């Protein structure tokens, strides 16, 4: 990619000096700056002091075992952890456990295979850092998850000529994603937002955003509605030092006219029945960043066969570039017969095993044969 290449640190936790030496060589060939640790406790310390991005970890260590090292590392580090074990059958057992490791490899190992595995790890999106197992915190996380879940719309939107679906997959750490919709006399209103942060703080901000957006449902013009709502939201956000990216849209179902405002979200796409997908460009920064900000509204014609697709940044983070992201979202959008299928395909773009953030998708599809 782009020079200069950042320095990457790795820690080798291995009690056998010969294997340790070999691992150091293998990692140095991949341009890692390597620190050696002969036992678990010094390994944990080495990761802490070097802020390593990669750890190779022997399962059997003289002091604490590899599983315990993993658990301790996950309290503060999101380094890639590659576990090494001398027993082939142990890999199955480890795979079944939630150790927090990213991959497992058998000893004796081939240096080439090990290097290939490490390259593969760094190509894929980060696995979630396990939340601290502090019981008080897990309890709060559970409550935050309940709040977050309660924000999703319970009612389905049944609009003649349209197929509307949404899907949401939370992370264990609970983010600030949510979507909301409701039917109106002319069609529907839709809000898609991501409040920055994790846990109860993010969930409460999301709840505020949802309530405030609902309170302006009867304001006739989308610009006025959003201006008034965003002012209220921004003052709340300012107190908590947070911000929220938002996409708000109003659909007139008979004409297919969609008015929308994008505040720093930038991940809504118009997928026409024919022709290339277009990303709806954001009209300004997220809500809660600058005072007195206004976001102009835009319009889009949703023709029969067209879809509006909105995803959260969890989907983007699973891609190397915006181009890859666009290609895959468009492919997913054209893959399913129903909006629900498409939502499932969109969530799959950020596989649960590696996604670091909540993943959310909403699809509004105007059916090809829409007639009245």
């Amino acid at each position: 990619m782009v020079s200069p290449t950042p320095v990457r640190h790795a820690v080798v936790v291995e009690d056998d000096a010969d294997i340790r030496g070999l691992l150091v060589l293998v990692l140095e060939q991949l341009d890692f700056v390597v620190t050696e640790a002969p036992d678990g406790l010094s390994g944990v310390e080495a990761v802490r002091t070097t802020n390593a991005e990669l750890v190779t970890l022997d399962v059997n260590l003289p002091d604490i075992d590899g599983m315990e090292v993993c658990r301790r590392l996950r309290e503060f580090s999101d380094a890639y952890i590659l576990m090494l074990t001398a027993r082939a059958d142990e890999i199955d057992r480890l795979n079944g456990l939630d150790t927090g490791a990213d991959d497992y490899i058998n000893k004796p190992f081939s240096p080439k295979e090990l290097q290939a595995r490490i390259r593969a790890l760094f190509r894929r999106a980060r696995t979630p850092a396990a939340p601290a197992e502090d019981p008080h915190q897990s309890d709060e996380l559970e409550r935050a998850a309940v709040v977050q879940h309660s924000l999703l719309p319970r009612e389905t939107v049944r609009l003649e000529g349209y197929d509307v679906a949404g899907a949401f997959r939370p992370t264990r750490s609970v983010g600030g994603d949510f979507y909301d919709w409701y039917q109106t006399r002319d069609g529907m209103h839709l809000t898609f937002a991501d409040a920055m942060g994790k846990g109860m703080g993010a969930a409460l901000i999301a709840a505020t955003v949802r309530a405030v957006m609902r309170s302006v449902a009867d304001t006739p013009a989308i610009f006025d509605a959003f201006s008034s709502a965003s002012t209220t939201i921004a003052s709340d956000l300012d107190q908590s030092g947070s911000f929220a990216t938002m996409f708000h849209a109003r659909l007139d179902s008979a004409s297919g006219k969609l008015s929308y405002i994008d505040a720093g979200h930038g991940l809504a796409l118009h997928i026409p029945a024919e022709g290339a997908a277009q990303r709806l460009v954001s009209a300004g920064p997220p809500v809660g960043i600058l005072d007195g900000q206004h976001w102009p509204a835009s319009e889009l014609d949703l023709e029969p066969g067209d879809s509006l697709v909105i995803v959260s940044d969890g989907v983007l983070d699973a891609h190397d570039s915006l181009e890859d992201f666009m290609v895959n979202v468009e492919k997913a959008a054209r893959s399913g017969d129903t909006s629900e299928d498409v939502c499932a395909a969109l969530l799959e773009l950020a596989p649960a095993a590696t996604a670091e953030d909540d993943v959310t998708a909403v699809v509004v599809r105007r059916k090809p044969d829409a007639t009245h």
Partner: protein
Amino acid sequence: MQMQFSYEVKDSYAEVKSVGRLNMVAAPKLREVVNEVVASGSSRVVVNLAETDFMDSSGLGALIGCLKAARQAGGDLRIAGVQPQVKMVLELTNMDRVLTAYPSAEEAFGDD
């Protein structure tokens, strides 16, 4: 021994170097370091991102929090050495208009 964030107080600004992924784990640390810098009297801060090739929304949140802290203290926060993925996130969220990117830390406060 390398930390994720280090800083150096220069003549007219303080440079904070960020090394590695600016994500959920790193974000609180960046806030800590910048708050420390601002509290010690340097409210003109450049965050050098030349060695940060990934930033998620938590990282963006931290930068914005730091920007607010610097402005509250009468200064500003600017960024330098922005890598492609970070640039993409800034553009998508329209934050490139708020957080001005400069090629290098030296140039960030070069105009004033």
